[in-house]
Structures are given as C-alpha cells and as structure tokens.
C-alpha cells in the first residue's frame, strides 16, 4: 500500500471537497496527516483502493503523487526508532493510523525494511 500526497489550498472547504470525491467513489481513508505551509498544504493519506482513487483524483484535477511508506505497529515504536537511528535511516515524517498502527516515510525504504526484518519487527504493508 502506497501513500497518496495531494496538494490542496489551505482554505475552508478544500479538504471537504477531497473527502467528497473519495466518498462518491467508495474509497475509504485508512490514515491521514496534513502538513500545511501558509495558503496551501499537502494531505497525506492511505486509501483502500489505489487504482480507483488514482482515477477519481485525476478526474477531479487534483495534483497528487504516490510514495512508498512503512506501516508499522505502534507498540514497536521504541525498537523501530532505535534500529533506524543505528542504521542512519532518517524518518521524514510519520502519522498514526487506526488500530494501533503508525505510518513512516523514510529516506531509504529498502534499507529500513531490511533493518526491521533483521530485528524481527513486523512491517504491515
């Protein structure tokens, strides 16, 4: 599962219109975080149907892209940050997800996956 990053203007109604597009197309939001800077921001989210979401967002003329992220268990967080630090993997940003999960965007996902699996930490996606 990859993360959608969607450019939105930072004003009332914009997030509502995004949610509306997703709802109309039967797409569920599994996790979401918003980063803002002045009059705009990026909505980062995990959606349950990548292909359908892509088409729907394109049709709605939204500027977006897809990146690989890690979905991890929140209970492992102590070990995760420690192991990543020890292996010089940077965590660019993170946000939580329903069901005791956390989403990490790292600078080197392959290395992060390798480090985590060596240490028996479960990656959920």
């Amino acid at each position, binding site marked *: 599962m990859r993360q959608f990053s969607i*450019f939105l*203007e930072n004003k009332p109604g*914009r997030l509502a219109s995004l949610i509306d597009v997703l709802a109309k197309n039967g797409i569920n939001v599994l996790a979401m975080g918003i*980063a803002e800077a002045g009059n705009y921001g*990026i909505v980062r989210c995990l959606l349950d149907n990548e292909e359908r979401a892509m088409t729907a967002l394109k049709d709605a*003329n*939204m*500027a977006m*892209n897809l990146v690989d992220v890690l979905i991890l268990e929140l209970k492992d967080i102590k070990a995760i940050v420690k192991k990543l630090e020890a292996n010089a993997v940077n965590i*660019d940003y993170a946000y939580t997800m329903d069901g005791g999960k956390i989403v990490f965007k790292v600078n080197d996902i392959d290395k992060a996956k390798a480090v985590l699996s060596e240490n028996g930490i479960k990656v959920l996606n």
Partner: protein
Amino acid sequence: MMRSMRSLSRHEIVKLQDDRLRKLVKRAYESSPFYRKRFDDSKIKPEDIRSKKDLAKVPFTIKEDLRDNYPLGMLAVERSKIVRMHASSGTTGNPTVVAYTKKDIEAWAELNARCLETCGVSSNDVVQVSYGYGLFTGGLGLHYGAEYMGAKVIPASTGNTKRQIKLMKDLGTTVICCTPSYALFLAESAKEEGIDPKRHLKLKAGVFGAEPWSETTRKVLEETFVESAYDIYGMSELNGPGVAIECKAKDGLHVWEDNYIVEIIDPNTGEVLENGEKGEMVVTTINKEGMPLLRYRTRDITILNDDPCDCGMAHSRIKKILGRTDDMLKIRGICVFPSQIEEVLSSYEGVTPFYQLVVDREGPLDRLLIRVEISEDFKSDRLTDIVDLQKRLEDEIKEALSISASVELAEPKKLPRSEGKAQRVVDLRKI
C-alpha cells in the same frame, strides 16, 4: 499584387510612406473637420508635413478623441461612402466607433491575407477563425484575409469549445486563429476530450493575437497545440487585426509600413524615441480612407527595429508587445506589466501558464499577490518542495520586476479561464 507589397524594398517603402502621408494630410485637412481644427489650432499647414520626420509636428490623436467625437465625428469621407461600422466595448462612457469605406474593407482583407501568407498559409489551408465575430474586429478581419487568399474558412467565432475541437478534427483545420489564452484553453479542453492536438489534429499554424503573450506561452502552444505559433497585431482603430505579423524568423512582428507609419514615443513626455528604444507605439494610418488617424497613441509598449530580417522582408519590425500603458500597473511607483510575470511563470516546471494578479493596499503600501496554478504534473509528497517552488518564484519575480510580490499557489484548474481576453488583473486599490 499581394506578394509585391510584402516584398517592397526599404527604399520603396519609405517613398510610398512619404507619398501617402502627404496625400493623407492634405485629405484629412480638407475633409475632416476634426483634423482641420487640430491643424489650425497647432498652426500647421498640410504642406508642412512632407515626410515621416515632419510627423512630430502633428499633435497626437488619442482614444478620448474618438469618444469625444462619438459616433462618427472623425470621418474624412462623406457619410454615404461608409459601408461598415465597428465599435469597441464602451465599459466607461461612449464606445469608440470605427468606420470603413469599401476600399478600406478591401485593403484590410489584403493586409490580413499578407499576414496569413507570411505565416505560411496558402489557399489549400483550412483556416478556423475562433476570434469573436461581430463588433469586435478580430473575427471578421482574419476571415476576410483567409477568404481573400482563397483558403477554406471556418467562421467558428468564440465559445462552444467542444464543437470547436470537433470541427478541427472533422474538417481538418490546419490553421487556427484565436487569442493565445483561448488557444491554451482549447489545447487543455482537447486533452480532456481524449484528443492530443499534436497527434490527432493537423494544426500547422496558430495565428494568435488581441492580447500580449510571451515566448514561453509560445513554447507551450507549440509543444501541445500547433506546429508553429505566430503573433499577430492590430486594433480596431487601425482596421483591426493585420497591422503586423511575425514571420518564420519569429524575431519581431513586421508592420505593413505601406499602410502604417510607426513611431515610438516616451509615453510621459511624448518625445519621439530612437529605433531600439522602448516606448509607446504611435501609428499613422496612411492608407485608410473612411477614418484615417494621425499619430494615434496605441498605448502599446514595444520597440521598433528596421534592421534587415532573415526572412528577407523589408517592412520594419516591432517587438512582441511588452505591455500596455493602461494595463501597466503602477505598484509602489514601479511600472509592472503582466507579461513580465507571465514570462517568469511559464519558464517553470510545476506551474501552469494560468495566473492572476491581485493588487491591494495595506496602509500606505501597495501589495502585489500573484496567484499561480500548480500543475497536475507537480509530484511531491514533501512540503519543502512546494515551499521551495514558491520561494524561487518569488525571488525570480522580484528580480524581474524590481519589487517584491507574494506568490500564492492554487490547485490545478482553480483559476478563472476566459474565452476572450484573459482577466488576469484584479486591482482592489481604492484610489
């Protein structure tokens, strides 16, 4: 006939200009009460004007003169000889009316035919005219030109974009004439209809005018819409389109100098500037019969260049219009042209050529806000990439304008589109 006027030598042009100027001044004095009074008031006799350099003695004609003499006070012929009247939009006060004799209409058609021919159009071409038809001269002017040369004309006018695209496809349009902002809109709309203009249409030339546009807009139009984009210049007071056109060298627009004498002046002092200097274009219509104008202030800012052109034509060139003295925004005392901003924006990946300028005042200070539309192709999950794009735009705009402006990024397709002239400037200052 047509070809011979395009290929006049420099010497022939100058001789023809002086000859026609003398005749015009005499006729204007004899037949136009307006110009007779102007000459008498300034103590000038028609004989004082022998050549282009004497023109500086003649007072300017301005748009307000046309309004003050509304509707037909500027005629230089009997009213019975007029066969056509066009009028500009009169958003403030009276509209400006321009009147044509039969000979004027024919001359206008021939000038537009010359323009099209200069863009490589021939009688085999299918020319879709998507300028407005009616009181606006754009549609009819190009229509006459295309018909004059025997091309196949589609008088599409503006609007109904889906049908425009269908006609282009089904009738095999090879030449499109419209405003550059409408061209961008057509290209975008075609894409939405699943038509890639470069693959599915056969547009070899686009003749774009009626508003200033930049080299970078040309790049976009040539990459996405037409094989070759040409700038055409004109205004209804000077017939309409067909005053000047780009040749294949695309290094300025050739003015048909056997019909128009161009001077460049300092808009503040009225002083005539040297070739190569930037200023307001002033035009004398030496071949117009119904309503000739002497030293008409176009309010368009450009540079005149009479160096030989690679294309071989000896008609002098004006630079692409850099802006208008009345579109010119004075922000914190500095002259700003929207075209300067457009030039910066369109050199950037990640933003579209659509933008909007909002000027307002905070306390005693003018503020310029530039709303820029992010492109759907802008792909990043990192806020820093967007902040960086915004900052780079702000820096480069500051560099280009010598004043600072804030850039606001808008979502794709959120800024207003227009089917005619783009409404790009919103001035909220209360003066």
